[in-house]
């Protein structure tokens, strides 16, 4: 069972994409990749998800935009980005040097038309492998989150995007809902090719000295190890109700966390906050994931996807 020389296969298939391992950085936690490229070869990643991209440039929210909480952090970046045109011209081409690295572009906006417009522009790009529809950012007023909490609205958004997208469309869900399964099913029925969950949980912390919310914008999105149990449960529940692949996100810091999400039902995972704690987090987590498989005699990581589900004896 425990042969250190054992060859393990940690590649997974996600939609039409082949990922050499299930680990990718999460949107907004890796910018567009260049900065981290000075720390390691991005080619080791399973895929890369870039920062949310909107139709026009956005300056985002007032500072402070980040705050530490117990085993987590709050952010209220508010989708600062240079707008889809500049993203396509200045950011994405850089990533094409990593030949086998799928690039997933996170798309955000305010109204359906924005999203459609961004998607249409991206559809012509040779540098894009898939679209991740961000209907779950808690940090913009009238932002995506209304689509993320109403199944009907989510479904219309997905249909509109699918009508123009030439790439697979992954819908990123918000955990700030009463019934995550209902949201997931609505997106699947509307044609989503995959789901990623979870985005951040709405939270707040107060600066006791200034007697006001610490973040410039009041509330923010909670991420990090604190939210992992919330994310695991949502992945676990959604997995049983959909047949499209699920990408697990929330609090991943180690290879064991990756395994936990896979056992819950995720086909792949995204690593967010961990990149801030340690720029080398992704390659370390990939190594640890492989090592866990070696230690546990798992020859192909695909064996353990959904292993903790009741149907699999979990």
């Amino acid at each position, binding site marked *: 069972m425990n042969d250190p020389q054992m060859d393990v296969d940690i590649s997974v298939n996600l939609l039409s994409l082949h990922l050499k391992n299930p680990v990718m950085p999460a949107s907004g936690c890796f910018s567009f990749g260049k900065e*981290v490229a*000075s720390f390691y070869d991005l080619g080791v990643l399973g895929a890369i998800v870039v920062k949310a991209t909107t139709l026009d440039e956005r300056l985002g929210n007032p500072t*402070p935009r980040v705050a530490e909480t117990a085993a*987590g*952090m709050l952010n209220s970046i508010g989708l600062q980005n240079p707008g889809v045109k500049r993203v396509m011209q200045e950011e994405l081409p850089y990533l094409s040097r990593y030949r086998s690295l799928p690039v997933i572009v996170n798309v955000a906006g305010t109204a359906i038309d924005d999203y459609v417009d961004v998607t249409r522009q991206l559809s012509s790009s040779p540098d894009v492998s898939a679209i991740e529809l961000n209907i779950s950012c808690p940090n913009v007023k009238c932002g995506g989150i209304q689509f993320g909490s109403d199944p009907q609205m989510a479904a219309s958004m997905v249909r509109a995007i699918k009508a123009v997208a030439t790439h697979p469309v992954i819908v990123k869900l918000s955990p700030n809902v009463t019934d995550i399964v209902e949201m997931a099913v609505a997106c699947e029925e509307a044609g989503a090719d995959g789901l990623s969950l979870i985005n951040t949980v709405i939270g707040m912390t107060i600066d006791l000295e200034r007697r006001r919310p610490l973040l410039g914008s009041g509330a923010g999105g909670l991420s990090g*190890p*604190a939210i992992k149990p919330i994310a695991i449960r949502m992945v676990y529940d959604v997995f049983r109700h959909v047949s499209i692949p699920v990408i697990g996100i929330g609090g991943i810091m180690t290879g064991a966390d990756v395994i936990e999400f896979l056992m819950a039902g995720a086909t792949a995972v995204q690593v967010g906050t961990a990149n801030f*704690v340690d720029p080398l987090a992704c390659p370390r987590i990939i190594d640890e994931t492989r090592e866990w498989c070696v230690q546990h005699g798992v020859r192909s990581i695909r064996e353990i996807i959904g292993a903790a589900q009741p149907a699999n004896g979990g």
Partner: protein
Amino acid sequence: MAPMPDVEVFAHETLGKDLYALTFASPIDLRAGNYQPGQFLHIRVSQSFDFLLRRPLSLCYADVDQNRLTVVYRTQGAGTRRLTACKPGDVIDVLGPLGQGFPIRAQDHRTLLIGGGVGVPPLLELAKQLRASGKTVQTVVGFQTAGQLMLVEELAAYGEVTVMTDDGSAGTRGLVTTALTAELCSLADRYYACGPSPMLKAVQQTMRVRNVPGYLSLEERMGCGIGICVGCVHAVYRDGQLTNAKTCREGPVFDEREVVFA
């Protein structure tokens, strides 16, 4: 490729009440010279998730011979208090030096350094390097009260130091800007300032009136420190447009001409 972030602590001295100097092995080879005064180290105060984010502390002194770096910090909250527990021989996780530091300009002769509170530490390495490149250094530092003074003697090794305190308990009563008289400023080719935002804003205004160009080191709350979270931005006016620059990567030091305060 990235340097190993785990480095050994060599000394951890108490400089005063709540004030510490931490010296550790440099994560980079200082002899290669690719570091600048005004850059910062991004330090994990503990491996516990209680302190998930790193803390930014300015490079205060670089000992090139021994390849050691020193940061000087005041305990502020739980994180810096936790950091005080680390002892010589311990290994800490340090990223850096990161960011854009203070540029040293060949054409300058006389420099004016302005620091407030925990903005003073980076001025020490700056003063050292300015002197080493043959410039004169004049320094003005401000503190709330006498008990918070730091690095005054060390700075005095490189030039005259004027001390200001809010309550007059040491040096002269007043803000640093009180000391930035037309006379003093007329002697400066360039200024370098680091401190809290209200001070920097006042310094920027005063020095524009005095017609002295300079650099400001901005302080914003940071997530990653390496430019990937977009948490630490500050408004700058660039290419005719108002935009948000990442202080961790494009800063913390900016040309005062582009910095916009609210």
